[in-house]
């Protein structure tokens, strides 16, 4: 089985995210980048499924700059077989749909039977790309997946929806699976794994190499960020301390009713 896993480079979750002075972009000067946390669950699941069905290849793909090499190497160290970076130079501001076109083309060329990605990027929080890749390939997707069982050319998939409920689907492969945190626990990379990863194939290609071109991708991009701002600061609130708890609680509940009017 050919399995493609899509990974994205994102700032780490502790990072302070600040707009540049002109507000046109974000200041990443002192930000450490990591694999999008949800993509780690995707990599883990891809390797798990490959091991389980046997005779499989896992290809880790990122549409990114050279810094994504570390992310792809990590996926290889976890157990992916091959890496591919499609360079995004001059295409950093493409929207989700244009990015999905690039990744869908890769999945098509790879003749993927199963495609994994994280349920969303923790940067723009859109939940777009995986779903769009599936649509562009004319295949089903199931996003926010907490459990997956592959049986031959089919899979049983559990999707998390509101209120802790699960939708249980039967899907014919190929399909795109968006990983939720509850899907698995990603393995640690071992030292032998890291050594092996360095010997695994890691290709770098341009969009032209895969038969697309920059101009048409820029034309396909239909949305844009005009400016970034910080969320409004909250005015200082009221602090209750040093009184008996029942007194403080009564005061706060009164204020919630009369001042804040939320009860």
């Amino acid at each position, binding site marked *: 089985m050919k399995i493609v896993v899509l990974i994205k480079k994102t700032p780490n*979750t502790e990072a*302070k*995210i*600040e707009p540049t002075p002109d507000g046109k972009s*974000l200041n990443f000067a002192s930000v450490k980048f990591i694999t999008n*946390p949800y993509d780690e669950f995707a990599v883990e699941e891809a390797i798990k499924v490959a091991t389980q069905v046997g005779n499989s290849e896992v290809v880790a793909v990122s549409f990114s700059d050279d810094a994504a090499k570390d992310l792809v190497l990590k996926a290889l160290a976890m157990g992916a077989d091959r890496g591919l970076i499609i360079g995004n130079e001059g295409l950093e501001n493409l*929207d*989700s749909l244009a990015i999905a076109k690039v990744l869908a083309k890769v999945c098509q060329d790879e003749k993927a039977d199963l495609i994994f990605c994280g349920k969303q990027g923790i*940067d*723009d*929080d*859109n*939940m*777009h790309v995986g*779903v*769009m890749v599936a*649509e*562009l390939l004319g295949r*089903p997707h*199931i996003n926010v997946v907490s459990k997956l069982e592959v049986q031959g050319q089919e899979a049983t998939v559990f999707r998390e*929806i*509101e*209120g*802790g409920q*699960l*939708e*249980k*689907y*039967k*899907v*014919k492969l190929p399909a795109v699976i968006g990983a939720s*945190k509850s899907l698995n626990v990603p393995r640690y990379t071992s030292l032998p794994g890291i050594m092996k990863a360095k010997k695994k194939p890691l290709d770098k290609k341009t969009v032209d190499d895969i038969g697309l071109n920059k101009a048409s991708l820029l034309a*396909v*991009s*239909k*949305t*844009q960020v*005009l*400016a*970034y*701002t*910080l*969320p409004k600061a*909250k005015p*200082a*609130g*009221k*602090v*209750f*301390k040093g009184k008996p*708890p029942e007194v*403080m*609680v*009564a005061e*706060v*509940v009164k204020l*919630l*009713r009369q001042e*804040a009017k*939320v009860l």
Partner: protein
Amino acid sequence: MKVLVFIEQREGKIKQHAKEALSCASLLASSDVYGVCLGKVDADSLAQIKRYGAQTIYSISDEGLLGYNCLNYAQALCEAIKNLSPDLVLGIASPLGKDLFARLSARLEAGLLTDLVEVSVSNSQIKGAKPMYAGKTLAQVGFSSDSGLRLVTIRPNVFEAHEKSGESSHEELKVALPGSEDLKLLEIIKGSHQETDLAEASRIISGGRALASEANFKILRDCALTIGASVGASRAAVDSGYASHDMQVGQTGKTVNPSLYIACGISGSIQHMAGMRTSKVIVSVNTDEEAPILAISDYAIVGDLFQVVPLLTEEFKKLHS
């Protein structure tokens, strides 16, 4: 500007947030607003939604739309769009809405802005604002073209729902669905806890590592019941196994936007605060006066949550008597 609002239903009941989407559409397009509902809808639910300003509510109640199937839903909504030629299709950024609109965007090659907390139209130019990085920054976003079909989902609980005078008409649309065998919804497995998802909840009470065990979350659930709140958790509590992941609030959990958020024993990591800072009113209960969460709290109680939360429960009960 003609706006088509996607009206979401689950098991025949229209989601409350659909009213917010219709009211938002009325602000943008005045009276040129239409609704479309996929699946079978209860008569009561339909009667209610008719009071929110749409000219006509269309429904497509094919068997293939009873539960959510992304292929059937995308097909049906595409047909409705082809029939009605809106400039903007507006939905709610719920689990279903986000999923469906992404599919639709790729199918129709239409730009999509997701989870907007502000949206405006001027001279047919649509702009909005959207939290990114779980709310650490707010992005001003727009479309590269001021014409053609555009897609937007809005965040639940942000836009106010207003009843309007008059009543929408109702029409059934007949659509041929592909009947694909590629994807089948087999069943919906009920959750063990609350029905309202955190991302859509209007009241949330959350617990952190200070809860110290899964069993202790009961005091939060008891308190939540008295005010119809949903129960959330910090990442620390989830990682310690005290709460399930769908309860996690923050950057690798859910971004929430309730009118009331009560944080119990949560110190306030940057990731947690990013996910809940837009809550209208924040109450925190913490033994540590220096905890970062106090800085964004409207009301902070410095005290032991095991004493304070049961007292809150008692006070909330009094509100009903």
